[in-house]
């Protein structure tokens, strides 16, 4: 096999340099550079419209870039699109399964696009259906599936060519918590056997669950890069105390809290008190006679990192 086609674990499988996409006046992706290692689980975290999906499509070469360079398995997707896409499994943001076909037929049809023979696809479809936990629905029309089942089928479909790199664009958007956990479990298993995952998401918990390393994107630019843990360490405190004094009073009391916290964020409905010891901060606040209506101590999350970096929450 060609050496470029099969780099070992740890070698970069995607390398983007100064990647840019401009639509008219809008710089959807504005000169970002990143590198993804083989076997890694890599996240692109940002709000809607940050440029995540645009970046994803440029990896697969289904969207032409304005400038910059991109290499996937050593190949330029703009020039060698079919070769690059033969390496990839793609899970798009919106499902595009053919709902009139059965679960099984959706897999077989898709496998044919890779030139895979029917003899291979017949057994592969069964394995994938099992993996997606859809055995009871194999011969049902896709339209009869729930949202979570369709999502699992889309992921199974993306695995038909045994890709080394799986691109997942907002994989769990629109799913209920239980369906999300089932899906994460399936993705974990793939990662365990060495499939490289690239995940875009605007869910903090998803990024923290799935990603070894991520970039935080806003307005087409990289705001920060690192593991979820290191980002929280660098841009936030260990704990966060959330206090509510009522919409009218929040602004009035905030000045009195300044010395309790490493940092404060005032949101419309609550104040976030960044501190390494939330309980101690709450006691101190109470000792000052400022009794909040509600209070909550939690661990810092990527949401806090994003807020710190951009001044905005991720999901409005």
């Amino acid at each position, binding site marked *: *096999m*060609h050496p470029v*086609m099969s780099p070992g674990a740890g070698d970069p499988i995607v390398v983007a340099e100064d990647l840019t996409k401009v639509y008219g006046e809008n710089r959807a992706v504005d000169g970002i550079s990143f590198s993804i290692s083989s076997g890694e689980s890599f996240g692109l975290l940002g709000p809607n419209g940050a440029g995540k999906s645009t970046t994803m499509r440029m990896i*697969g070469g*289904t*969207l*032409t870039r304005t400038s910059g360079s991109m290499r996937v*398995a050593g190949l330029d997707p703009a020039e*060698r*699109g*079919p*070769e690059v*896409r*033969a*390496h*990839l499994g*793609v899970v*798009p943001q*919106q499902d*595009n*399964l*053919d*709902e*009139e*076909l059965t679960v099984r*037929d959706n897999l077989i*049809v*898709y496998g*044919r*696009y*890779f*030139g*895979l023979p029917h003899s*291979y696809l017949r057994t*592969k479809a069964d*394995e*994938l259906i*099992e*993996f997606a*936990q859809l055995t009871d629905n194999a011969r049902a029309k896709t339209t009869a599936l729930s949202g979570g089942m369709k999502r699992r089928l889309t992921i199974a*479909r993306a*695995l038909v*060519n*045994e890709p080394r790199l799986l691109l997942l664009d907002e994989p769990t958007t629109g799913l209920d918590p239980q369906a999300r956990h089932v899906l994460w479990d399936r993705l974990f*298993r*793939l990662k*365990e*056997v*060495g*499939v490289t995952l690239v995940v875009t998401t605007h869910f903090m918990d998803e990024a923290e669950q799935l990603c070894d390393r991520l970039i935080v994107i806003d307005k087409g630019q990289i705001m920060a890069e690192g593991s979820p843990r290191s980002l929280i360490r660098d841009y936030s405190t260990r704990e966060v105390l959330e206090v509510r004094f009522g919409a009218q009073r929040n602004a009035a009391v905030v000045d009195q809290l300044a010395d309790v916290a490493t940092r404060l964020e005032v949101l419309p409905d609550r104040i976030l008190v960044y501190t390494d010891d939330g309980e101690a901060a709450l006691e101190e606040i109470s000792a000052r006679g400022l009794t909040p209506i509600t209070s909550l101590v939690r661990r810092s999350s990527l949401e806090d990192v994003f807020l710190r970096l951009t001044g905005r929450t991720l999901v409005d």
Partner: protein
Amino acid sequence: MTDTTHDLQRLAASGRVPPPAVMAARARRWGWWYYVEYWLRTARAWFQSILIYMVGEPLLYLIALGVGLGTLVDNGVGTVDGVPYLVFVAPALLISTVVMSTGGELTYPVMAGFKWDRLYYGPHATPVSPAQIATGHFTGVMLRFTVQATIFWGIMRAFGAAPRGVLISALVIPIGVLSAAAFGSVLQAYASTLQDEGYQFAFVQRFVIMPMFLFAGTFFPLSSMPVYLHWIGWISPVWHGTQLARQVTYGAVEPLWLTVLHVLVLGGLTAAGLLWARHNYTRRMAS
């Protein structure tokens, strides 16, 4: 459940998949056909219901216009173009019905591919190219028209409406498909430029397809219309197809240059429409 690491490893890398370069090479060569395969698989779902329509439509047309109206015409003016009215009108009806079917096959389904169900974006993420998706969709529809034209021709034979020899009159099948290709490819290309379907497809149906049906020498020779309406025939694939069809089904006579021109017009429109569609698909899907 596929829970063991061994099963998972086999799922992720069974060793039974060819190298990506091989998959890409196959797709470059056969991608359009893979899309046809997909199209045929979806066709299974609706083929039975459409089969009734493909048999019923020629029966109704030939009975109503050929036998019913034909009796009246034959009793009044005798023959048209030297043959009974049924024989005159039947090949034109075959061409018209097949061409008119493009109005359903290469309009809304194209919109479903780009927008409503985003069906084109599945293969777009694979080694198959947008131009191949355009060609594949077009080819699948042409296969359907081949079946439709064959059934129509069979019913014409049963009615005695295609009196020339079996082999020569069977040429009406490829002529019908070519006529549908000429109009359908352009329609597919046009449909692929639309972001939203407002009134456009209904407009095409009423003001393009219907006039082609009514004024392109279907029910009466183009020459019996006022000269200032002849242009509708000349620009219409239905007329060019009908004129060819009449030659093979009952031996209508035309100068050779005109026969060649019919083929060139139909072939040229097909090629131009398909190139335009492939271009549109490529541009639209890469932006």
